[in-house]
């Protein structure tokens, strides 16, 4: 790639060639749709009915749960891509793994902070060291560890990070089921299926908004990683 292709590659600035690929052509309409859906989410939430015991504070639910859905998607990408990189040596998979880990850490932080604010009002505490919350915090720390290894680990850090990515992904089902297996202050998984249809609609809308946003950020982050790898390769060729 030459500097001309960089300057001509449009707003993304990371075109891999002179002609825009189908995914690049779809990027702008996709970004507009994702932004509109995400911007409309608070309006949809405002229309949702109040829950009888928690009233207004329960509406954190409509961003809290989609944050965890997005984290699960990001973690799945990270785990699957890490395994592909570790056992098949796919470099593209490695790019997906680091993008997935970064997004999982981001959505995990959103879930933890929104959950803590909800807990302060609903339970009277900011934090409780029960199984669910503690395991979730550990997962977040594993993801932060993954990113630190990638940044400061030096040569071979990709393989070590891939192991951490798989480890982090494997913990996700245990975290999800922990509320059913152990006594915890957190509501059980059976809460979601009992939602009223009038509450289910806004939840679905927000889940779609987060899913679109996740896909958009993943595409951007993978593109960035591909460009970074290309720059490294060009630098080595130039030096050689």
């Amino acid at each position, binding site marked *: 790639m030459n500097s001309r292709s960089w300057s001509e590659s449009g707003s993304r*600035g990371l075109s891999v060639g002179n002609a825009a690929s189908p995914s690049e052509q779809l990027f702008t309409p996709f970004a507009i749709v994702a932004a509109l859906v995400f911007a409309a989410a608070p309006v949809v939430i405002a229309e949702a009915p109040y829950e009888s015991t928690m009233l207004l504070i329960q509406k954190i639910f409509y*961003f809290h749960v989609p944050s965890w859905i997005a984290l699960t998607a990001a973690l799945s990408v990270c785990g699957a891509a890490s395994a592909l990189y570790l056992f098949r040596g796919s470099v593209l998979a490695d790019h997906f793994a680091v993008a997935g880990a970064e997004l999982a850490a981001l959505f995990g932080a959103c879930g933890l902070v929104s959950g803590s604010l909800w807990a302060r*009002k609903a339970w009277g505490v900011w934090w409780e060291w029960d199984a669910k919350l503690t395991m979730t915090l550990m997962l977040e720390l594993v993801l932060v560890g993954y990113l630190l290894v990638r940044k400061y680990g030096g040569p071979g850090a990709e393989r070590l990070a891939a192991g951490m990515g798989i480890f982090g992904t494997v913990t996700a089902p245990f975290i999800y089921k922990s509320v059913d297996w152990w006594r915890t202050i957190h509501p059980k998984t059976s809460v979601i299926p009992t939602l009223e249809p009038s509450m289910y609609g806004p939840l679905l809308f927000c889940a779609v908004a987060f899913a679109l946003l996740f896909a958009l950020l993943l595409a951007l982050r993978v593109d*960035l990683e591909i460009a970074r790898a290309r720059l490294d390769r*060009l630098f080595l060729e130039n030096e050689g």
Partner: protein
Amino acid sequence: MVRRAFGIGVVLLLAALPVLAGQSVGQAPPGQEGYVPISQLPPSQQLPAAPFLIAAYAFIWVALVAYLWSIWRRMGTLKHDMEILERRSLPRK
């Protein structure tokens, strides 16, 4: 015989009524003597929901926008590095 037993039962029930009524009255919470605005409650009991809800949404919005900005900044840095690399490689060609 049956009528006598029925009569005794009714008498016992009537005798027990004041006791049961007393218990139920004893369990009832005291009547509210007036409405207290939330602003007059001690600070420890004032915990409106709106600030928590707004803080949660604001955090998520800020986090996502900050992440988007960090990607944009990293893209800019990459582009800048690429241009430097191009300039360095031009004299060789």
